[in-house]
């Protein structure tokens, strides 16, 4: 369970997160909102790239904000990035195995774990290919594999479907839905593709101007009047 209380982030005069309060229970949760609402900033705070001006984050009983960023990753907090960050110079395998550099697992079980993650995202056939030669959809999946290898506790996916064609997005949706079963991790998904969010997430929270404006079961949230006004817009044109 992730409990966020009073989280505030300011960049100069701009308040990006404004006393955000939210609780993510378990399973796969969505986090949506218009551009600039503070979704990525929230991920950056959780993963340690941005230091908040105030607030607390309790993750599975642990005070997350007191850990150095690379230690959070080793503790089990993983993420992907809005602009995909697979490492070109390394093979798919080495990209994923990066996470295991500091684990105490034996070589054989490491290999098994890495190959397992690669096969969940369906990249078995290119496991030893350099990432530089892969297409954008495959690169996204390399990043997802890196986020789910090695027993993570919390996986943050930042717009994993951005720029992907529909069939790739559908495939990605299947992968995301399978993450909790394969790893037992909690997933928070940020995306603008509402079919992906509603297909993957049982519950969803909505941010607007750095504040939580709604949260609950995904279907209800997407019908919520405030959410429609702030983000989704109305389809009927009168």
């Amino acid at each position, binding site marked *: 369970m992730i409990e966020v209380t009073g989280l505030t982030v300011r960049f100069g005069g701009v308040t990006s997160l404004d006393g955000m309060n939210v609780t993510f229970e378990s399973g796969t949760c969505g986090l949506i909102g218009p551009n600039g609402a503070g979704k990525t900033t929230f991920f950056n705070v959780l993963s340690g790239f941005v230091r908040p001006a105030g607030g607390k984050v309790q993750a599975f009983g642990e005070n997350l904000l007191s850990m150095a960023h690379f230690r959070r990753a080793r503790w089990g907090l993983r993420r992907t990035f809005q602009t995909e960050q697979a490492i070109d110079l390394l093979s798919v395998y080495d990209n994923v195995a990066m996470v295991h*550099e500091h684990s105490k697992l034996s070589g054989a079980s490491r*290999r098994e774990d890495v190959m397992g993650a690669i096969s969940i995202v369906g990249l078995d056939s290119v496991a030893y290919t350099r990432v530089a030669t892969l297409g954008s959809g495959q690169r996204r999946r390399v990043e997802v594999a890196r986020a789910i290898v090695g027993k993570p506790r919390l996986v943050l996916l930042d717009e994993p479907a951005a720029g992907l064609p529909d069939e790739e997005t559908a495939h990605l949706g299947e992968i995301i839905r399978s993450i909790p079963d394969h790893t037992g991790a909690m997933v928070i998904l940020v995306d603008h593709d509402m079919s992906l969010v509603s297909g993957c997430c049982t519950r969803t929270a909505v941010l607007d101007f750095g504040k939580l404006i709604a949260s609950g079961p995904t279907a209800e949230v997407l019908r919520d009047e405030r959410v429609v006004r702030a983000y989704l817009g109305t389809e009927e044109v009168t």
Partner: protein
Amino acid sequence: METAQAATTTERAAPPPAPSRFDRDLLLRTVVIAVGILAVLIVLPQILSLYYIDAMTQVAIYSVVALGLGVLVGRVGLVSLGQAAVLAIGAWVAARLLFATGLPYEVVLLAAGVITMLLGTLVGLPALRMRGLYLALITLMLAGAITVVLASINFPNGGRGFSGYNGSQVHIPAIRRPGIAQTDPAYFRYAVVVGVVMFLLVLLHVRGRPGRAWAAIRQSEPAALAAGINTTLYKLWAFALASFVTGVAGGVLAGADKYLYSIDFKTQDSITLLAVVLMGGAYSMWGAIVAGLLMQLLPAILNDIGLSPDWLTILFGIGVLQVLTTAPTGIVDQLPKDIARLGRKIGGLGRRAPAREEAAP
């Protein structure tokens, strides 16, 4: 363990086998390189004049310096403009120890490497907070500062005290060389062997865990952090490794030159070093050797034919411009491609029509 692995993956599409570490290609390359090194060790001192043997000793030394800078620039993406000063520190420490103690030369080299590593890692501290132009500026200023300090305390010349410098000395003793490498050809071989050991040391790092961490840091520090890589540690590690090999190279330089003067270590050399490393190819270890040749053999040749080596500054300027605009991987990568292209062109002259199709890929 391989069988257990296979059992779990049978239902899925069978993945291609992991590339084995010791395949035939690697063995062949190792043999070719070993034969090449032996040829350099045995043949070069036979066919070259003493003048060019000395020049090649300098090439061996500066290849190692370029190798260290290549780790920083090519592997981690940290631009340092202070490596000539780091080299001077290594030379100073080695000279001081050689005058003050009777330690074997190899021990002195090791000590010079370790002490330079500690100081060089301090230089790396600003790198934790900055990159690019600002890091370059800071390291350049530090190099300038070290040059000033060395100019005032001077290089050891057999005197007493911490600096080991005696300004009133009439007969200045030479810095000693290892017993097995008294003559210039022998010392050339010694320098090459030390250089090979340094290349192997760096190769171990690049192929291993630090190399993968550096690759991640170079392309995306956020991704490295998100995978749990301690980027601070690995950046300092790169500075430590680069300083160590540069310090050892400084130790070899002390014995090669026999007399060290602070005027020979110019701040500008650090800039030239970066230029030749970029020209040689910062992403490849072979590039370091090309860089060493550019930096030390080319001036020797110009001197030999009666031209001032100062002209090289202009040539290097043009070379860097060319590398940055058309061949970012440097000469080691570009030259074979150019030769292949030239070969295709020449081959295509006979049969005009299909030439265009072949050139396409």
